[in-house]
């Protein structure tokens, strides 16, 4: 029997479940390696070469090179792991989260100061506001 996944109808949201975790294992473990200062320096010196040392898919490597966090998440990345890339780039969590929303950094920050994104219309795909 298939697992119950009641969370697949939430818009703009990927739940990092066992299936995503399996898909993204090497991508996330690569991110984990950036916890060490010497690895951050090696990655920054030659990103492609550093990525090629990991058994990641080409799609995953390209998503990292493009800093396309939505793509990284679709390919099994988890935001707490992907945050290590942001840290390596000197980005804050707010900059990283904002980059996935289609808003500019300033627009995203303003949205948060005004109380954040409303849940109304964002509970289910196709829901009317």
């Amino acid at each position, binding site marked *: 029997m298939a697992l119950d996944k009641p969370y697949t109808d939430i818009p703009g949201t990927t739940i990092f*479940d066992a299936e995503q975790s399996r898909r993204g*294992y090497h991508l996330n473990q690569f991110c984990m390696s950036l916890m060490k200062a010497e690895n951050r320096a090696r990655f920054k010196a030659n990103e492609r070469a550093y990525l090629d040392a990991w058994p990641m898919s080409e799609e995953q490597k390209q998503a990292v090179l493009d800093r396309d966090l939505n793509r990284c998440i679709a390919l099994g990345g988890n935001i707490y792991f992907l945050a*290590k890339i942001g840290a390596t780039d000197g980005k804050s*969590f707010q900059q990283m*989260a904002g980059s*996935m*929303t289609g808003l500019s950094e300033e627009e995203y920050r303003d949205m948060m100061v005004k109380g954040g*994104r409303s849940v109304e219309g964002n509970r289910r795909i196709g829901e009317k506001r």
Partner: protein
Amino acid sequence: MAHVGASVYTSHVPAIGAALDLGKTGEPYWQKVFGGYEFSKQWIKRHTPDVIFLVYNDHATAFSLEIIPTFAIGTAAEFAVADEGWGPRPVPKVIGHPELASHIAQSVIQDDFDLTIVNKMDVDHGLTVPLSLMFGQPEAWPCRIIPFAVNVVQYPPPSGRRCYQLGRAIRKAIEAYDEDLEVQVWGTGGMSHQLQGPRAGLINKEFDNAFLDRLIADPAGLARLPHIDYVREAGSEGIELVMWLIARGAMSDAPPSVVHRFYHVPASNTAVGHLILENR
């Protein structure tokens, strides 16, 4: 005998730690956050416990995808402050309480809660930001701390019901410890927030305030809230709130005194919630 006198609940946003460490606490944006903890800093001076049992989640710091324990209790003598990619926070190392931690581990495992026992673990902002919010910037933390890490990174985290029941087992274990220790149990994380995908930035004030109300008055009922309701209503990372139920379960069955309650949006991507409950 040891006993639980109070519980503290707070969000643990990394940007709060960064604001403290970089001396930004006086900025208007941050003053609205730190202002909510002024009372708490005075309160904790009068109520400094011997030990804090601190429930938090590791953010892919001590635990990668190699090992994902659902519940991990830190039984070491001390815990180093982790480098999460920005360098370690400039805060004191964490001094544990191996004797009490081991006692709790043995007790709750015999009560059917299968903890993972961890003797070496760096602790991240999930643990250190709550300490900074309550104690400010001391040379050394003023008490012993038992880190208790809950998996909320890979779905599913433990259920709210399981967390609440575990809290009750932890209380029983603490109350059976022979030494006369004052213990607080802290629950951290939340409140509503989502850090990923096009829905990032989600905040739900109604959900959060109802959660606070029910945590105080109806924790057993709140513990039955299914995961999907947290994710849908409070964001994919809002599910961290199940950890608050561990601390709540560690309180007496009698209604607690609400010593302090605070709620503010935002700190970075997150709704900040904070409660102090005392046993009567």
